[in-house]
């Protein structure tokens, strides 16, 4: 299979489409998260970047940083991977917010707390995909999310292992969710499957 990321038409044809998708889709995802938490959550300017796989473990502050990853797949015409990564301490605070307890209440992430975080993945993923469906007419359904509490690099291995057989790069739509105090709340990544990008390039979508 031809590596779709090095395709000569990537920059002129694919990038503008993905930028619209990232902008609208991620804005919609953060709107969902604001509604869910009752907090004003903002988002940095979404980016479309081609990232070498070898750089991925270092993208979120260091490979051994303790983090929580919520991972889901999108299935359908716009298939791909969706990953939300929270710094561990932020995840604890977010759980307090979700279960309406004072900040500092949640000290560890058991089954109940993890399911609250899974719901955040579910909601932001669904809002993103709904937006893409409305904009581009591409149907996709999110799978149930998986929650990982581990070192950043181990969490991101899921993305790396999925992509490494096809390419040395992943094409990533990404943004950082911020709360009022401008502290980073979460990184939101969408990685469309290569076959989706190929379909875009060939004008099938």
């Amino acid at each position: 299979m031809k590596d779709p990321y090095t395709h000569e038409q990537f920059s002129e044809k694919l990038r503008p489409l993905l930028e619209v998708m990232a902008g609208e889709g991620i804005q919609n995802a953060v709107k969902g998260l604001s509604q869910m938490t009752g907090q004003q959550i903002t988002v940095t300017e979404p980016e479309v970047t081609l990232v070498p796989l070898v750089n991925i473990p270092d993208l979120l502050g260091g490979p051994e940083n303790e983090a929580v990853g919520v991972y889901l797949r999108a299935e359908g015409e716009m298939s791909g991977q969706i990953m939300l990564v929270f710094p561990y301490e932020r995840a604890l605070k977010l759980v307090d917010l979700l279960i309406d307890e004072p900040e500092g209440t949640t000290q560890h992430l058991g089954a109940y707390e993890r399911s609250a975080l899974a719901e955040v993945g579910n909601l932001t993923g669904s809002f993103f995909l709904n937006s893409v469906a409305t904009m581009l007419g591409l149907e996709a359904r999110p799978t149930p999310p998986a929650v990982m509490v581990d070192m950043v690099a181990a969490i991101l291995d899921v993305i790396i292992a999925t992509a490494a057989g096809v390419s040395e790069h992943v094409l990533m739509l990404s943004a950082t969710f911020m709360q009022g105090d401008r502290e980073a709340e979460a990184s939101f990544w969408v990685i469309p499957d290569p076959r989706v990008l190929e379909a875009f390039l060939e004008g099938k979508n």
Partner: protein
Amino acid sequence: MNNIVVGLGEVKISNNPNDILVAYGLGSCLGIAMYDPVTHVAGMVHAVLPSCDDTTEINEACSKYVCCGLEVLLQKMLRAGALRTRIVIRMAGGANMLASTTFSDVMNIGFRNIESSRRKLSEMKFKIAGEEVGGNIGRTVRFYVADGRMAIRMMGGKERDV
């Protein structure tokens, strides 16, 4: 001590007793190390995927695959002065990060990495002296060139030997 980072798909070799070969935060990836206790030549591969097809040429570009990575690692060990019959193997990693979810069956790359390395090492007539593989937790792996010791650390835990 000097940390030498073994990144994704890389093979690193050293015979400097002050060096430690380190692969940070392995999830489904495997860190497989070789050591010659006489010449103190140590090497590690950080493999990402189980196997390449048979037609793939063995070179560093394919060392992200367990099967090819082991061949590249062995070649580099021998070139650095290791004797094949003295080589000791240790490995760690191969977790299933998506355990107990709808993903676990189809996407258990960690398990397939472990299987692939055991098969390949057996073909190469190597025995595994120590391992800490599988489960669903990430591991940082350190391999000490001075004595061939492999140690792992998990989130919130202390380092311990494999």
